């Protein structure tokens, strides 16, 4: 590297003397961003910051030292970066940064908007910010994971080394940038449409139009929010004045599908049809015990058992149920046998001959 002139050496000396301030500013910027992100509930893939190294600063001064009158004129001594999943979140975090910091609009640049209609390449939002209480400014880079991957690979392949990039290589990198831009937009669209879908489903569930809602993980969760098994669980708990512990019911999704439930309406009818028999099974099992703790899955578990047995599914059907709940293991057969024997004299078993 070329020897620095006196002016640049003075800036470098000022940099060394400012190390502790720059380190403190870096920590404060990180803390500030972290708190704001936590508060907003936004999920990001990366939140990081660094103080420019002396070597990097010396390189910058060697190239364009005359541009800077003092150390304060250099705006990226501290750099922070937030990487998001979605393009929409870049804008949300930008607006968050505008509330947190004083933005130097003259020096900030939205690289996403710099491209011509027919060009693609580095995409990122760069804000030059000032943190209250500090004389130095810092650079905040906001980008998506895909933009970050492109930038990192582009950097790795020599972009910053000063070597002229061969046209063919540049063209291929830019083609990728265009493709990733499309992928980013599509991810954002999918998120928005999924949120719309969930809102529509919740409205249909609220309005009781359960036959219009296909059964899937999302819709099942929405349906369970109305606590449709509460009454049955309370009846079962009353047998031994038991307490009920919350249990996840997501494992039952697969079981319900195997029981031919295609819509939430099918699930609702299944519950209504078998809840009395499910209670009878629980009373038969628990009545002679002093077990006074139950999982909230007990109601749905017994409904599934009763449905399988009353439709002739027998021990094999029960074993499949336990496989769906427990995964494949050697205990499932024994559990099916046991359950079958417990239920064999109950009224709903008359179909299983």
């Amino acid at each position, binding site marked *: 590297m070329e020897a620095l002139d006196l002016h640049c050496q003075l800036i470098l000396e000022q940099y060394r003397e400012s190390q502790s301030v720059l380190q403190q500013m870096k920590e404060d910027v990180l803390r500030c961003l972290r708190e704001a992100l936590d508060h907003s509930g936004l999920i990001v893939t990366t939140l990081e910051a660094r103080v420019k190294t002396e070597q990097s600063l010396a390189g910058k001064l060697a190239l364009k030292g005359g541009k800077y009158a003092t150390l304060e004129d250099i705006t990226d001594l501290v750099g922070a970066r937030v990487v998001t999943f979605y393009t929409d979140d870049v804008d949300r975090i930008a607006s968050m940064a505008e509330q947190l910091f004083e933005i130097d609009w003259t020096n900030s640049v939205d690289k996403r908007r710099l491209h011509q209609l027919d060009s693609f390449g580095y995409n990122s939002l760069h804000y030059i910010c000032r943190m209250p209480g500090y004389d130095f400014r810092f650079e905040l880079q906001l980008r998506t994971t895909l933009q970050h991957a492109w930038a990192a690979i582009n950097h790795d392949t020599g972009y910053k080394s000063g070597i002229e990039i061969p046209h063919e290589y540049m063209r291929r990198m830019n083609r990728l940038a265009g493709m990733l831009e499309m992928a980013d937009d599509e991810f954002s669209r999918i998120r928005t449409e999924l949120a719309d879908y969930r809102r529509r489903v919740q409205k249909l569930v609220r309005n009781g139009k359960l036959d219009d809602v296909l059964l899937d993980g999302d819709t099942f969760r929405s349906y369970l929010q109305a606590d449709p098994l509460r009454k049955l669980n309370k009846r079962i708990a009353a047998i031994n004045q*038991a307490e009920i512990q919350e249990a996840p019911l997501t494992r039952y999704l697969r079981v319900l599908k195997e029981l031919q439930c295609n819509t939430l309406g099918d699930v609702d009818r299944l519950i209504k049809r078998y809840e009395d028999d499910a209670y009878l099974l629980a009373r038969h099992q628990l009545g002679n015990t*002093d*077990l006074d*703790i139950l999982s909230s899955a007990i109601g749905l*578990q017994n409904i599934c058992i009763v449905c399988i047995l009353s439709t002739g599914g027998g021990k094999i059907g029960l074993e499949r149920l336990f496989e769906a*709940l427990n995964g494949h293991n050697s205990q499932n057969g024994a559990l099916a046998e046991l359950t079958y024997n*417990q239920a064999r004299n109950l009224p709903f078993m008359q179909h299983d001959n």
Partner: protein
Amino acid sequence: MTTTIQEDGNQLIATLAGRLDTAAAVATAEAVKPLLEAQGKEIILDCSGLEYISSSGLRIFLSIRKEAAAHGSKVIVRSINADIRQVFMMTGFISLFEIQ
């Protein structure tokens, strides 16, 4: 009722033997305390020597599960006998634990 805990790599194996009834619950709850502090480990409750479990015992299993979930650990209940299997089924606890 006896409870012993062994560490094996990323696993904490608690071997429970005897009758886990109300009388044994206090001592057992004390004995399993190291499991409640396990961070990110797989907790195996080896029940091959467990003859009986009451509601008090189920509450201990539940507290292990709750703490494990809070610490990013996983609980596996292993080798339960037919009577205990029946208790797990009747109470809906088979939906709370992975049983092997």
